[in-house]
């Protein structure tokens, strides 16, 4: 019975993937990609990787899809619609893709025996960081340097987007995200849903210590609430020179780095936590990161400034 479910899922995913490639319209391709992300999150659920499933649904399907949709709307219709590349290019692209797929298949289908895994070690030492969720322990304790750099990359991505701002608009606000036609339904949704979204976001982060959930999922939900408010036109995106905004962007990574250096002083290594205080420190870092992730994701979707700064 569960085999049937898995087979149906696999077929649906292949269909969504092929649809993403074959469809000619950019926006349709992005919508197909969002569907693919949601289906993939179901696969992660089937593999009992609930943390990954949550991230895939929130980031892979939701946030990335929204960024791509905005990019579609922003791009000029430069591509020659309906004109296909020559047969040589098509065959070369097909062959290279097949080669990459074959390489991946070889790796996945013939893993070394015994499979190299640190899972046992991770589970064995989890008590030293005071957490119950091994995924959070890996992300914020064992491999915290990776997580720190990942957050710094987010800040760099935002700087990259802001760098696209024309000189005249520097310091101004990104273009309004407001829907072209006012809608009572959207307005109501944007007024009623955010308190619940904020609650869900806090729940995801707090719960992430011992159960599936975590910073990135919580931050994405928070960003989604902000974007909903901006799309309903209740608030417009703030100017990118706003001091508070920029401080929020770097707040999470800055706290993380400060905790890292404090680790040298308290227990001898960069980013090491004193065992007695590991959990409170990790939760504090997560709380700071959630705010930054939410603000960065919201600003990434809003895009570069599109209005001259207000004097």
């Amino acid at each position, binding site marked *: 019975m569960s085999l049937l479910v898995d087979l149906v899922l696999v077929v649906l995913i292949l269909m969504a993937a092929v649809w993403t490639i074959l469809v000619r319209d950019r926006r349709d391709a992005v919508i197909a990609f969002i569907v693919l992300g949601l289906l993939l999150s179901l696969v992660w659920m089937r593999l009992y990787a609930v943390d990954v499933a949550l991230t895939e649904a929130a980031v892979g399907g939701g946030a990335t899809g929204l960024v791509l949709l905005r990019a579609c709307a922003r791009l000029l219709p430069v591509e020659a619609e309906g004109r296909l590349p020559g047969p040589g290019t098509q065959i070369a692209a097909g062959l290279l893709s097949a080669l990459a797929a074959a390489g991946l298949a070889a790796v996945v289908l013939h893993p070394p025996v015994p499979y190299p895994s640190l899972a046992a070690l991770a589970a064995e030492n989890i008590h030293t960081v005071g957490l119950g969720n091994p995924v959070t322990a890996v992300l914020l304790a064992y491999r915290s340097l990776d997580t720190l750099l990942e957050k710094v990359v987010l800040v760099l991505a935002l700087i990259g987007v802001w760098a696209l701002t024309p000189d005249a608009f520097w310091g101004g606000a990104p273009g309004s995200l407001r829907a072209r036609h006012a809608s009572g*339904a959207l307005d109501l949704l944007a007024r009623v849903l955010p308190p619940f979204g904020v609650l869900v976001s806090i729940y995801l982060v707090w719960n992430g210590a011992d159960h599936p959930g975590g910073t990135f999922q919580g931050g994405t939900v928070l960003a989604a609430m902000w974007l909903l408010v901006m799309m309903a036109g209740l608030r417009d995106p703030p100017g990118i020179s706003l001091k508070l905004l920029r401080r929020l962007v770097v707040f999470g990574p800055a706290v993380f780095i400060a905790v890292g250096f404090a680790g040298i002083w308290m227990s001898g290594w960069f980013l090491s936590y004193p065992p007695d205080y590991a959990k409170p420190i990790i939760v504090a870092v997560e709380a700071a990161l959630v705010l930054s992730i939410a603000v960065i994701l919201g600003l990434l979707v809003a895009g570069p400034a599109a209005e001259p700064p207000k004097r």
Partner: protein
Amino acid sequence: MNLLLDSFTVVAVTAGLVFFLAGTVGLLRFPDALTRLHALTKADNLGLGLIVLGLLPQVPDVVSALKLIAIWVLVQFAGTSASQLIAQFVRRNEPGP
């Protein structure tokens, strides 16, 4: 007592699935966007509602039950708003009577 609760779950979840099936058939078979939306919302509201209702006797504590109900309410709210938005889009783009 357990048998009674279990049979309630089976009946309610099955009824919910029937609504999902009907909603899907409607989505595929109905002639235009508004009637298709009508079919979809039945699956969302009644289908999910009956499944949640059916699962309630199976949860270990009150908090889990409240979470299930919260999921149903949130899906209701989001689904209704999305349907409204799609319907408004359809109405704007169709030629007036």
